[in-house]
């Protein structure tokens, strides 16, 4: 196989005339990996690829959200010593910080849960161990996301 080139008109080297024309078209040769009706349906979707992509996209957003969060909570304005109920009430009075924290909660929990899923898949060798560890992981993840979302949306500065 020295070349894969074909002459567009299909002129044979010996014949010197076109082998095919409008009335006598060349047979269609399907590409070897062409998917046809007979090709079996893939048994798995693209879940792992979307998971991989999600880690990178959410990662970029989280770099901004989390480093901003650390600056506000631990560095600016007296660092951790200023934090208290009144400080939380002041920040969550603004929809901007509510949305910030909500996005951070969801993205960080899903990013972390998918990371731990990968770690479990890598190190838990027995199928049963994987099943239980991932069951625990998903339960904790759903619980934490729902709890955090509820707290942000139902926060009451006049609770007492």
């Amino acid at each position, binding site marked *: 196989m020295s070349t894969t080139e074909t002459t567009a008109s299909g002129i044979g080297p010996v014949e010197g005339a076109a082998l095919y024309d409008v009335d006598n078209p060349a047979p269609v040769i399907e590409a070897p990996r062409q998917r046809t009706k007979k090709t079996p349906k893939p048994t798995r979707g693209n879940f792992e690829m979307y998971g991989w992509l999600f880690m990178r996209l959410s990662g970029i957003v989280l770099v901004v959200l989390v480093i901003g969060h650390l600056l506000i909570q631990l560095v600016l304005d007296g660092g*951790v010593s200023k934090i208290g109920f009144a400080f939380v009430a002041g920040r969550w009075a603004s929809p901007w910080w509510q949305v910030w924290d909500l996005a951070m909660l969801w993205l960080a*929990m899903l990013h972390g849960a998918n990371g731990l899923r990968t770690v479990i898949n890598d190190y838990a060798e027995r199928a049963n161990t994987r099943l239980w560890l991932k069951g625990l992981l998903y339960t904790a993840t759903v619980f934490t996301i729902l709890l955090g979302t509820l707290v942000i949306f139902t926060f009451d500065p006049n609770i007492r």
Partner: protein
Amino acid sequence: MPAGTLYRGREGMWSWVAHRVTGVLIFFFLFVHVLDTALVRVSPEAYDKVVATYKTPIVAVLEYGLVAAILFHALNGLRVIAVDFWSKGPRYQKQMLWTVVGVWVVLMLGAIYPVLGHAARELFGS
């Protein structure tokens, strides 16, 4: 190097190990952090009481460790993205790791006073 292992050592493997370890640590902290923040729905006193432990010198050192883990995971994560999406990323992965380490050291030096300052004042007086 034991025979038949996939692990290849050097910058590539150790940055991957550090990325995993920091990622798992951050996830466990995040879980605890959502629980402690949820106390604002219980009462201001309950929340302030738990946050008071975050202000003790020992936990301040843990916070410094948390900042270290998050900054490494963030910077190395950007390096991973560059390796995956930038055509020259794989060729420069080592240089990018040492850049990550350099930026990380500078940021960690900068975080000493803001994160540990109040603990130092509490321990040694102001």
